[in-house]
């Protein structure tokens, strides 16, 4: 980077700053361009950490390490002219770093680890048999706020605000708890997708080795919404009680969020069009019309109208004199419809799905895809995420000298990097090391046994 160019950028950014004060929502589009990105990759992107992570301990000296492991991982790049390069692979961190610095991709996606080097897949394709096939892949989840458009009224599409973002917080809590307590996974990374959602990477060895059927099973276990555009009720909870997982999610997360926050922030019961949607979910006509009648006259009350009406609805549905079948779950069904996580199922079900790498910069918002700590996910604010322009501004103020590893921790990205290293990467690598050592020992033992025969 030529000194002069950097100086020019400082000026650009001053202009950006002015723009921000006038109309805060348009801070970002100007904040992203290929030159900024080049500097970001040059100085800030944590190549070494990414390589450590994607090597899963196989970059060590232990004889049980699989040296080809990292090189069989698919990366794919989206370049600024929308050219899409799939099946890129790299033998080591230097190759990865050089390629990214040279091509300066707007988006980096991470795919599975294949049976052979994906860059050489054509050579193997000749042999006829299906040798080129994915063998390992993190279990991944993609949750997107635009899939909640029928239950949020503050924003739609790619927009997100502080009123609807908590839906993502709820999703993280529910899914994270299930992955840990039910499925026994430990190495889970949540990442802000840069714009309108969150990604989840489950990195335990046994998660990486799940086959497609097992992935689909986990996804279905976590999937509750069965309705589509053509059905009124999106969630049906049959059975005489809730499954322990759903019961826990409801009691520990969904119920309180819905009653104490969501009905208020979205005014679910003060607006006729909105409460009609809820009444439609009640399978007993007489109850919904009774409530409709009650709510027509807009009686003033000291309490919040949303709270009052939700209370009336619950009282009627749970009073125990209901004859219509399936009514006793209606309250829960409404809460689940509005707040239960909505997963993009296809992403999780197949090994060969690509997912954007953490620490990418979203080209539309300029925000860095930083990790989210699930233990403190309420505190995460997407609008406070470091942006490319802020990072470069800081860089130009001279926060970074030579661009060393430790110095990264002193930048705006520092908090994210520290979290990534200490809470995710270190425990992960520790267990990878143990796994490699124990499976190597088992192999040695086995070959000894077969020798003795």
């Amino acid at each position, binding site marked *: 980077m030529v000194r002069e160019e950097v100086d020019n950028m400082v000026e650009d950014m001053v202009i950006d700053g002015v723009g921000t004060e006038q109309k805060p929502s348009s801070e970002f589009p100007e904040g992203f361009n290929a030159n900024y990105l080049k500097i970001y990759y040059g100085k800030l992107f944590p190549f070494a950490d990414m390589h450590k992570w994607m090597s899963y301990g196989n970059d060590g000296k232990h004889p049980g390490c699989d040296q080809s492991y990292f090189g069989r991982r698919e990366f794919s790049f989206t370049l600024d002219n*929308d050219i899409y390069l799939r099946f890129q692979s790299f033998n080591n961190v230097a190759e990865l770093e050089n390629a990214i610095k040279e091509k300066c991709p707007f988006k980096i996606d991470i795919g599975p680890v294949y049976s052979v080097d994906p860059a050489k897949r054509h050579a193997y394709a000749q042999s006829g048999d*299906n040798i080129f096939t994915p063998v390992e892949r993190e279990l991944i989840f993609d949750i997107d706020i635009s*899939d*909640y*458009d*029928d239950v949020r009224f503050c924003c739609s599409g790619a927009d997100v605000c502080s009123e609807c973002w908590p839906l993502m917080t709820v999703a993280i809590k529910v899914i994270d708890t299930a992955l840990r*307590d*039910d*499925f*026994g*996974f430990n190495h889970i990374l949540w990442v802000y997708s840069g714009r309108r959602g969150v990604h989840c990477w489950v990195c335990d060895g*046994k998660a990486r080795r*799940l086959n497609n*059927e*097992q992935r*689909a*099973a*986990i996804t*279905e*276990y976590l*999937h509750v*919404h*069965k*309705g*589509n*555009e*053509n*059905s*009124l*009720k*999106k969630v049906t909870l*049959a*059975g*005489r*009680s*809730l*499954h*322990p*997982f*759903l*019961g826990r999610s409801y009691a520990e997360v969904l119920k309180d969020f819905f009653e104490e926050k969501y009905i208020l922030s979205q005014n679910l019961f003060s607006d006729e069009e909105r409460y009609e949607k809820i009444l439609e979910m009640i399978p007993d006509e007489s109850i919904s019309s009774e409530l409709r009648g009650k709510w027509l006259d807009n009686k003033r009350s000291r309490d919040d109208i949303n709270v009052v009406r939700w209370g009336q609805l619950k009282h009627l549905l749970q009073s125990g004199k209901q004859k219509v079948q399936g009514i006793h779950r209606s309250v829960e069904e409404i809460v689940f419809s509005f707040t239960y996580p*909505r997963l993009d*199922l*296809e992403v999780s079900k197949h090994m060969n799905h690509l997912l954007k790498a953490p620490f990418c910069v979203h080209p539309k918002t300029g925000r860095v895809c930083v990790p989210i700590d699930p233990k403190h996910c309420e505190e995460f604010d997407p609008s406070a995420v470091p942006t490319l322009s802020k990072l470069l501004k800081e860089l130009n103020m001279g926060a970074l000298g030579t661009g060393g590893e430790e110095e990264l921790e002193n930048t705006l990205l520092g908090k994210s990097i520290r979290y990534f290293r200490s809470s995710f990467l270190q425990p992960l690598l520790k267990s990878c090391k143990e796994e490699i050592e124990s499976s190597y020992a088992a192999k040695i033992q086995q070959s000894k046994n077969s020798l003795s025969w």
Partner: protein
Amino acid sequence: MEIVGSRGKSSVSSAGDAFTDIQLYRSAPELEVRLEDFELYAVHRLRVLKGISDGLSRGKKPNEMEDLVNELWEVNMKRSEASEFVNKDIISHFVLRLVYCREEELRKWFLSMETTLFRYRFQRESPEAQRALLAEFNLPYKAVSSAEYESVKDKLKQAARSSGQSVPSADTIFYKVPFEQVPDLVASRRVFILKGYAYVAMNQVVSLLMTQYRSNLSKALVLTNRKWTSMIREQEKDRLTPIVEALSTSYLGPDYSQPIECADISLKDIDQVAKSSFPLCMRHLFEKLREDHHLKHGGRMQLGLFLKGVGLKLDDALAFWKAEFSRKVGAERFDKEYAYSIRHNYGKEGKRTDYTPYSCQKIISSTPGVGDHHGCPYRHFSEENLRAALNKMGVGNRAVEDVMDKVRSRHYQLACTLTFEAVHGASCDAGINHPNQYYIDSQKILESRKNSKGN
């Protein structure tokens, strides 16, 4: 297994375990088989598997499936002598392995049908027989101790109640197995899962065995395929090979991957044809596309492959999708983001597989989510929306009630068949199994009417 000419006789194998006839088919039997029986037994077993496949695609419930499988088995496989019956079971299974080992699609179908057959046969066995089979699988799992049962019993009861199973008591045996081993129980939330382990009740053990059975059979099929291509095909080219090859094609039915002969449709006719001959699932997608100028991935796949099967050429398909999508996302974004997947469907990109249009079974079992329009309307629409859609298609009130009746009893394909009959005023005895079949049958009827008018 040794195959001899027609004068040979099949020898009797040891009847195996006294408790049960169910075979695990661990190794090919040392049996002599007459050539006629080789083919005949295979055909009989295929009737069973095909019947299972039909039952599944009609959305039959587990208890209905159990009766169906039992009946198919009795009718096609039973022999008067117990030993002959066991032999027939074993021989037919190994012949079909040869038939279905040779392609990925065939293997998948065979695996899934044989596993289903195993499941329902297992369920009819006595508890002693079931335990004996469980032991034969030699699984490394131990029953949950009573102390551990006490610590999780509330959760176990909750899980059982939530999925309508009988509530466990202190004498119910539970096995604690890695959740990966029972994907179907996990997917339907029929088990309690804690820290990676599923608590599988004795009456759910069949799921665990299915996984094992399936994985053993899957490995065996791959091996059989290797043997077939490296040895058997050549050695048997005058004797078994023609039989084996004929068997695999005669029973799967058409897959509609090749467009119907000389029936290409052009873009200008497509709206008219959609109205007259598309089944509701495709008609709905088609109308939504015209309305919203967009469909999500599942919808694009379901409609796109259907249109391919109907005879829409790649160039026309691109033009068709582009005309709609460009109104929403612009022509440039269409070329960048969507055109690839359309060429992909036609086998022009990626691994260059010529993808086959979705069958009813696949569509019925799909899970459309928020914003999705694909799936089977008879299964995935609410009653009101379905009624409205049927009225729009011109289905009369009486017929609508008949259709709704089938929907309530979950016979989605029968509901579609009745719709077909109401719309066309003609009977459809074969029933609807594939959207492209609906289209072809509809075109046939319309064509013959046109011709008879012309005369």
